[in-house]
């Protein structure tokens, strides 16, 4: 289904969604873009890339799994365990970039299968993603078109808006998306054929505006299979600081750690908590014996690339990279995943 939404009706439409929790990209006090609750305020969708992707809403950095409480009555000691599931209100994230929605589409795979992650799905099921096609690339390091995405891809999205100047061209992609339109049906219009044509032209044009390219990405998976012991990883990781920026700010990285956080030791009281973790930290693979199978920066950089471009491709037949370019733009020492993968392709050639 296709619609158009005149821009003058946009904020009214957002207001019609207020029974839901509405997130939009907003500028914080430091002038940074960030997905934050709309507060009924005006939302501007012409934004640069947010530092943190919307992953933090679907997969928060801290999540409580259960609470434990010890109590004693006379000689009787009991330990009470209480399951904690997130209390989620219907949520809509407006202004999501197509690459960020593609990342959610990847996380959907990871958190389903044999073990369905109830915490993730509790949020995901209640969340609708309203995308904004990137008629202008939000970052100079965007390379979505190289990893099977595009500035107007629809995977993971419920609605996709394309800016046509005075109106948005709206692609309604799922029943969830239909509900969002139905919330204020009268604001939307049926698109005239020439508007659809214009929208398609704008979308096609947006592909050409993506400046950076990783050519021929599919064969990389095969190439990487023979490069586990390559010295390339040593060379490319020399300047790595072993911080977590590239993975924590990646929309598709999803590794986590689970800890019991004790608030009081006697009587015992605390929570079991899931937090983000990253393969870039030395303790990520630390065994309890003291042995660390990934003891150096080289093996950790290799892991990040192999997970995204080999292992994930083997298991899910998709790249685990959506080409948003955050890891490139935000790396404090300029490690550039496109350059490293270019070297992978040249290796031994």
């Amino acid at each position, binding site marked *: 289904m296709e619609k158009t939404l005149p821009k003058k009706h946009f904020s009214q439409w957002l207001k019609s969604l207020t029974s839901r929790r509405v997130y939009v990209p907003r500028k914080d006090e430091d002038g940074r873009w960030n997905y934050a609750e709309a507060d009924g305020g005006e939302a501007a969708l012409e934004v640069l890339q947010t530092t943190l992707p919307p992953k933090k809403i679907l997969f928060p950095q*801290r999540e409580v799994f259960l609470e434990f409480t010890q109590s004693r009555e006379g000689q009787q000691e009991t330990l009470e365990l209480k399951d904690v599931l997130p209390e989620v209100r219907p949520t809509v994230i407006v202004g999501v970039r197509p690459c960020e929605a593609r990342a959610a589409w990847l996380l959907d795979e990871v958190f389903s299968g044999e073990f369905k992650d109830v915490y993730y799905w509790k949020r995901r099921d209640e969340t609708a993603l309203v995308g904004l096609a990137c008629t202008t690339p939000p970052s100079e390091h965007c390379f979505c078109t190289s990893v099977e995405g595009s500035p107007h891809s629809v995977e993971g999205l419920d609605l996709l808006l394309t800016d046509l100047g005075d109106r948005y061209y709206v692609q309604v992609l799922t029943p969830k998306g239909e509900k969002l339109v139905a919330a204020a049906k009268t604001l939307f219009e049926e698109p005239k054929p020439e508007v659809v044509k214009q929208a398609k032209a704008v979308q096609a044009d947006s592909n050409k505006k993506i400046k950076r390219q990783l050519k021929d990405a599919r064969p990389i998976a095969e190439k990487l299979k023979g490069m586990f012991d390559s010295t390339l990883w040593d060379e490319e990781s020399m*300047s790595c600081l072993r*911080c977590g920026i590239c993975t924590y700010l990646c929309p598709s990285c999803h590794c986590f750690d689970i800890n019991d956080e004790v608030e009081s030791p006697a009587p015992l009281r605390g929570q079991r908590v899931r937090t983000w973790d990253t393969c870039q930290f030395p*303790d990520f693979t630390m065994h309890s014996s003291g042995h660390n199978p990934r003891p150096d920066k080289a093996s950790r950089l290799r892991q990040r690339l192999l997970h995204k471009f080999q292992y994930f491709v083997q298991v899910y037949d998709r790249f685990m990279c959506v080409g948003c370019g955050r890891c490139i733009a935000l790396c404090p020492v300029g490690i550039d995943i*496109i350059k490293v993968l270019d070297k992978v392709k040249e290796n031994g050639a």
Partner: protein
Amino acid sequence: MAKIEDLKEEAKKLLREGKVKYIIGYGAGTNGWPAAPLFVKTPEEVDRLVWDPTCVHNLVRFLVDEKRRKSRQKQPDKRPVGIVVKGCDSRAVVVLLQEKFIDRGDVFILGVSCEKAGVVDDSKLARKLGGKKAKKVAVNAENRFVVTTEDGEVEASAEELLAERCLECKANFPVVYDLLSGAKTKRPLDKPFGSLDKMEALSSEERWAFWKAQLDKCIRCYACRSACPMCYCDECVVDSINLAVTADTTADEKAQRIRWVQRSTESSENMVYHLVRAMHLAGRCIDCGECERVCPLDIPLRFLNKKLEKEAKELFGYEAGFDADLPALVSCFRDEDPQDFIR
């Protein structure tokens, strides 16, 4: 500013004669910032070296990696590592020498003087260029910055673009070096702690509100810790696993390890992490500003370090990183120290 030609010539000689294992310097970046760390192993690669006001990184941090790497090798190459250091970075070398983390023979120091310039601040540069990207930044004869972008050149005064720390710099040329490029020009410094004025004028309630809001943004990527040349501990109090665990560590010992800081990004935990980090730099921080520069969420960490630097100066007349023969501030007591409880 030091001359890149001087550097290249010396670097080639050092590598050709095998006097250094490799050289840690600056090369061209590809991620939108003109300079990035570069590791040069052969004389042929030397021409890739650059030196300009975007060489912000403190490369001394890579000496920590080198030491770790060496400790893992059975027969390590004992030759020194060549390293390009600015004035501020050289003070970090001094602290590492003072703390006996490295020996003087471990490094061959290629000192570069910033003279009357310094390095540019990324957010100031971004504001000045209004969305355009700098391809090259140079300093002209009048000590003004000349920024080359896609659409031509933009000129700016030093004050407009210099990093805040450069405006309060106490060492615009290296204090320790084997070779020096550029002149030993002192820059007059009227207010060495001027950046603290605004923070010190706030009430404690206002400061609390400021820091709570700032530290709540922290995602604990630990880039501030990772970029710091002084954060060289093998085991850090905030890591969830004791990295010093060995095959001989008993299960009891592992179980009893105290968790001082939880992984959760809660206000309390973030606060503890940042205070621990700052306090461990008391009398050690040399104000290279890397912690603040690398923070993806722009937490103004330099305030914390600068305040401690000021306390060290006012209470003990101590400035870190100028004399490798002095004992470190927190490991010595002198008769003139203000705390007499220790006598």
